């Protein structure tokens, strides 16, 4: 349903004293999502994951330049098509309640989503009430303002905004940080439900354990590029292909709890060769010359010349 190939996003910024510089935030991003599938996009903070969501919705800032291709349901996703589809066929679940208008009741905001999807206001209001009930929100919730919601309630309201649409693609942007573990599980289950309804769900997160709870496939992000697309069970069966993914897995507290030294390269100074090269144990001279292509290895995709089939 969704195919992204070689996506690149670059920004030009004004530095001090009107100096201009270029930031390459996403390079060679590849991703596919099928209906009924939940794909997790996992990466460290600053790896450009949220920008992927913004690109799909056509809400990137003005100084952003896109390259590569995005196709949704067989047709290319141009800016115009993004504007036509967003909120209707493609929906976003934002990170926090800060993305809601602070001066408007949540009921009216969610109702607005319905109206943007063509419902008359009465029908939208009813649908809002029904959606809130589905997520077991108390009856007075529609009259509440965003600042009055608790963490769990806020999460459910945000999910409601996506459920109000008939979107075939739902993008959940970092839904779990700062939440109680029970609320995290509840939120993830809601996303799983959406996938089971037949929608495609992209879960953007840095929490790999959370991702593995509900994801079918996991796309691993590093420095703005996909380094591996694995199936969820590859993690537990040890079938990981890319050195970064393996290091990421090892660094978890319940595994070896071993960190990797070094940092992600800065977006304004990307290396010529493999982006993981300077931190990689397998790195050779060949790695530093050119960026590897995405290869199909062991039922998954990996961007490494040393990964074995």
């Amino acid at each position, binding site marked *: 349903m969704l195919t992204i190939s070689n996506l690149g996003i670059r920004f030009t910024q004004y530095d001090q004293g009107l100096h201009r510089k270029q930031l390459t935030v996403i390079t060679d991003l590849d991703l596919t999502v099928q209906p009924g599938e939940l794909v997790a996009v996992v990466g460290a903070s600053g790896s450009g994951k949220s920008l992927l969501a*913004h690109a799909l*919705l056509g*809400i990137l800032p003005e100084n952003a330049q896109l390259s590569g291709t995005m196709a949704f349901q067989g047709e290319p996703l141009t800016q115009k098509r993004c*504007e036509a*589809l*967003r*909120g*209707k066929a493609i*929906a*976003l679940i*934002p990170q926090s309640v*800060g*993305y*809601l*208008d*602070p*001066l*408007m009741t949540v009921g009216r905001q969610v109702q*607005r*989503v319905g109206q*943007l*999807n063509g419902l008359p206001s009465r029908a939208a209001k009813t649908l809002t009430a029904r959606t809130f009930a589905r997520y077991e929100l*108390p009856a*007075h*919730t529609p009259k*509440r*303002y965003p*600042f*009055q*919601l*608790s963490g769990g*309630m806020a999460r459910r309201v945000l999910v409601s*905004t996506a459920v109000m649409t008939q979107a075939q693609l739902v993008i959940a942007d970092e839904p779990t940080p700062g939440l109680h573990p029970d609320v995290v599980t509840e939120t993830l289950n809601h996303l799983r439900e959406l996938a089971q309804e037949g929608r495609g769900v992209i879960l953007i997160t840095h929490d790999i354990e959370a991702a593995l709870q509900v994801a079918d496939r996991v796309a691993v992000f590093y420095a703005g590029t996909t380094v591996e697309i694995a199936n969820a069970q590859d993690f537990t069966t040890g079938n990981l292909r890319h050195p970064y993914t393996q290091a990421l897995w090892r660094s978890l507290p319940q595994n070896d709890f071993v960190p990797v030294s070094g940092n992600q390269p800065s977006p304004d100074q990307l290396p010529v060769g493999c982006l993981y090269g300077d931190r990689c144990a397998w790195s050779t001279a060949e790695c530093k010359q050119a960026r590897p292509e995405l290869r199909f290895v062991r039922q998954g995709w990996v961007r490494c010349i040393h990964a074995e089939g």
Partner: protein
Amino acid sequence: MQLRPIVTFTAQKLLRLGLLLLAVAIFTFVLLSLSPIDPVQAYIGADMMRISPEQQQLIAERWGLDQPMAVRFWDWLGQLLQGNWGTSMVFNQPVGEVIAKRFWVSVQMLAIAWLLSGVLGLGLGILSGALAGSWIDRVIRLYAYTLASSPTFWAALLLLIVFSVSLRVTPICCAAPPGVLAGDVTIWQHLHHLLLPAITLSIIGIANITLHTRQKLIDVLHSDYILFARAQGEPLWGLIRHHGFRNLILPALTLQFASLSELFGGSVLVEQVFAYPGLGEATVQAALRSDIPLLVGIVFFSALFVYTGNTIADLAYPIVDPRIRLGGSQS
């Protein structure tokens, strides 16, 4: 409606007003005491010539002018609080009456200018901010930037030249046709004379409000909730209608009421150019002819005026912003 917060609010505001007026009183009094103006001469005026030095001494004693400053201040303050604001030397009437009459004349002009600058300023600001970068925005910005730092009195002069002298569509001065008795002035004549001064005053006000509103709207349009609304498919004018406007109201109202201060100052200049007999023109007269009671009265009045405006703006906050109104109440 709960009574207690309203009572507390009102009490606080009145207290602050009292303190403010006291500060203004002290400031004014000290200023005038230290000034080279002779208060006796100021209060007696042209009759100084006819009064013998002994009588001057008597007057000075009666007014307590030979007392230390602090004593004089409390005497003076006492007089003010009792409603005795003195007699205007220039108009030969009690200061209170002069201010009331003159303010009634000015307030019509101020009200029109205030409403016009508010409505047009908001409208142009929203238009300019929503279409930022387009040629409409550039035209509006050019107009606003030019006018915002234009000398008010020069803009008034220009308009007078164009409309009254060249085109002859508006009168060249005053609030009524010369030679017509006050009671005989028709409402059309009245409005005819009011028109150009009011428009002049509003033009400058519009410029400022437009620029500020534009910037606020641009800030709002860069916020997170607007980003999310866009992601939901909300078109530009939907964004402004459903989100932008509401988030703009508070800063706009604050600005609007703060502009009262500028408008008052502007009216001084506009009334001078158009020879319009309002409170602004009285201020100039008072200053030029050393009419201390009237000047002091106007100073207090203007402080009251500005303070009232700002307080009304403060009242708007809990009404518009639920976070202030509902405060700590959680679900």
